[in-house]
């Protein structure tokens, strides 16, 4: 700070003021309001009524909510391991000296920059039970493909598959950045000692890549709790509620049923899950160092 007296405050107001006001109105304010709302019943028409922890108690016994939570967790359990594995696989492949690496990297990254709506529409067409490309291919090898997005058993796996396809490039670039930070000399030394590809992977790549892997893992987990766009466009939570996930249910409660308080309570349970995940990662990291 180079100014003195009132000029000091004028400069501060100029630099920080707009952001502070904006964040207060459009982020911090809504966070506080949402927390307060979660203890009320409000339908936007009649005034909000304080109900204490009734919304949270109702959540505990709401079978629909638990089902939504189970669906979200089954998305997470399918998506996270697969996307990390495929991202790692591609990153290791692209970290070798092959011609056209930049072009391949761009190919894998293209789905990441494409809007989820466009991707979801393309995959709805691919998954079309009668005329879709996927079932036609399966038919060629004599397999009768499932109804995918129309089949309660296959809708979630289909959404997971599409999400893994879309985000492989995302995990890949995070891990590639990590891989490129591993000194070459380690590999050269290992080769001299006669280590093969898998030994180098096991004893050099994986340990030294751990920070990047943990980063990719925590982001994938946090994102998958909040899965929404693909579900909304591909199934709208159906069929028969098989893909109804947390954010979809929050949005429905708030904007279709005008249950502002209940939706807020539900959204704070989502925050609780994300907070717990973040905390676990934080403690693990601190425990190691």
């Amino acid at each position, binding site marked *: 700070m180079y100014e003195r007296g009132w000029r000091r405050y004028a400069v501060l107001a100029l630099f920080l003021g*707009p952001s502070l006001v904006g964040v207060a109105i459009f982020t911090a304010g809504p966070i506080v309001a949402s927390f307060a709302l979660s203890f009320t019943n409000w339908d936007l028409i009649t005034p909000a009524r304080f109900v204490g922890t009734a919304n949270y108690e109702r959540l505990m016994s709401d079978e629909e909510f638990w089902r939504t939570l189970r669906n979200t967790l089954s998305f997470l359990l399918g998506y996270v391991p697969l996307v990390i594995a495929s991202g790692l696989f591609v990153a290791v492949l692209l970290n070798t000296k092959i011609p056209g690496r930049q072009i391949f990297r761009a190919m894998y990254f293209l789905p990441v920059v494409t809007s989820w709506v466009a991707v979801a529409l393309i995959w709805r067409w691919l998954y079309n039970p009668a005329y879709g490309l996927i079932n036609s291919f399966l038919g060629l090898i004599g397999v009768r493909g499932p109804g995918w997005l129309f089949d309660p058993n296959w809708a979630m796996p289909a959404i997971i598959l599409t999400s893994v396809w879309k985000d492989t490039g995302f995990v890949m670039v995070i891990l590639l950045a990590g891989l490129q930070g591993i000194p070459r000399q380690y590999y050269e030394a290992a080769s001299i000692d006669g280590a093969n590809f898998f030994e180098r992977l096991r004893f050099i790549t994986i340990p030294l890549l751990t920070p990047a892997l943990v980063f990719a893992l925590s982001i994938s987990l946090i994102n998958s709790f909040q899965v929404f766009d693909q579900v909304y466009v591909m199934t709208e939570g159906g069929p028969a509620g098989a893909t109804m996930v947390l954010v979809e249910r929050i949005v429905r409660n708030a904007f279709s049923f005008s249950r502002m308080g209940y939706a807020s309570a539900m959204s704070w349970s989502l925050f609780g899950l994300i907070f717990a995940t973040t905390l676990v990662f934080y403690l693990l990291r601190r425990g190691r160092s």
Partner: protein
Amino acid sequence: MKPTLTLPPSTPGASDRPRAWRSRVHLDWRTLLVIALVLIGGLIMIGPFAWAVSTSLKPRGAMLVLPPELLPREPTLDAYVQVIGRFPFFRVFLNSVFVAVAVTFGQLVICSMSGYAFARLRFFGRDTLFVLYIATLMVPFAVIVTPLFIIVSRMGWTDSYVGLIVPGIFSAFGTFFMRQFFLSIPRELEEAATIDGAGTIATFFRIIVPMSGPAFATLAVLAFMGTWNSFLWPLLIISQRALMTLPVALSTLQGIYPGQTQWNIVMASTVLATIPTLIVFMLAQRWIIEGVAGSGVKG
């Protein structure tokens, strides 16, 4: 010894070749295997887009043929003509461009200035306030969205550009991101400016901004992509077709044609909506990939 497809240096003089030459065309079986795997994966990545393009070039009804024709037998631009005729595609496209550019520009200005305040200015409660900024990053949008919608609609901003743009400008993430960058700039540069009598404003605009190109570029790319692809927020506050952004307009397409979805038309719109993304991606590939890899933000 590992098996190799490169010719052994049996011809006289071959072994005199510089090592660099041999390592550059190191086409042993491993490299070939890697290329094969990467190529298969790449085709899986590109395949769905290619299928979308192929479908979009088919005439009405040609999608409902078994087995599907991989390439259209009689390619036609009918679907594109219909999209542009029946759907305000250019309007929607311009909406998306306008909103994304406005949010990006706003974030660059607001976040760089607040980021600088947190990095360099000294004021009471700075670190506490900064922790609060970071804390908001952990809160999912689903928590914010309900009250935010109420606030924005009380302001009368539903179905307006203001409602699409203003809430996106004040990014705590952007502030955090710019602060981290500014902290990496050596203080000596600013101290020299202060000795020369420059104030904070002059120092910021004449010294800091010109040397922060990479940070601005990365934040710009993340803000642009995030806004361009943003779905839930515009879905909630926009109901007029004339104000829709591309993702929202696309998502309504399935409903426009009742009964059998006309996939050639849906795919044509998807292709049209994806082409701008593709162009931006090709132009700014380096910034996009580095920005995403460094921040973990998908946009």
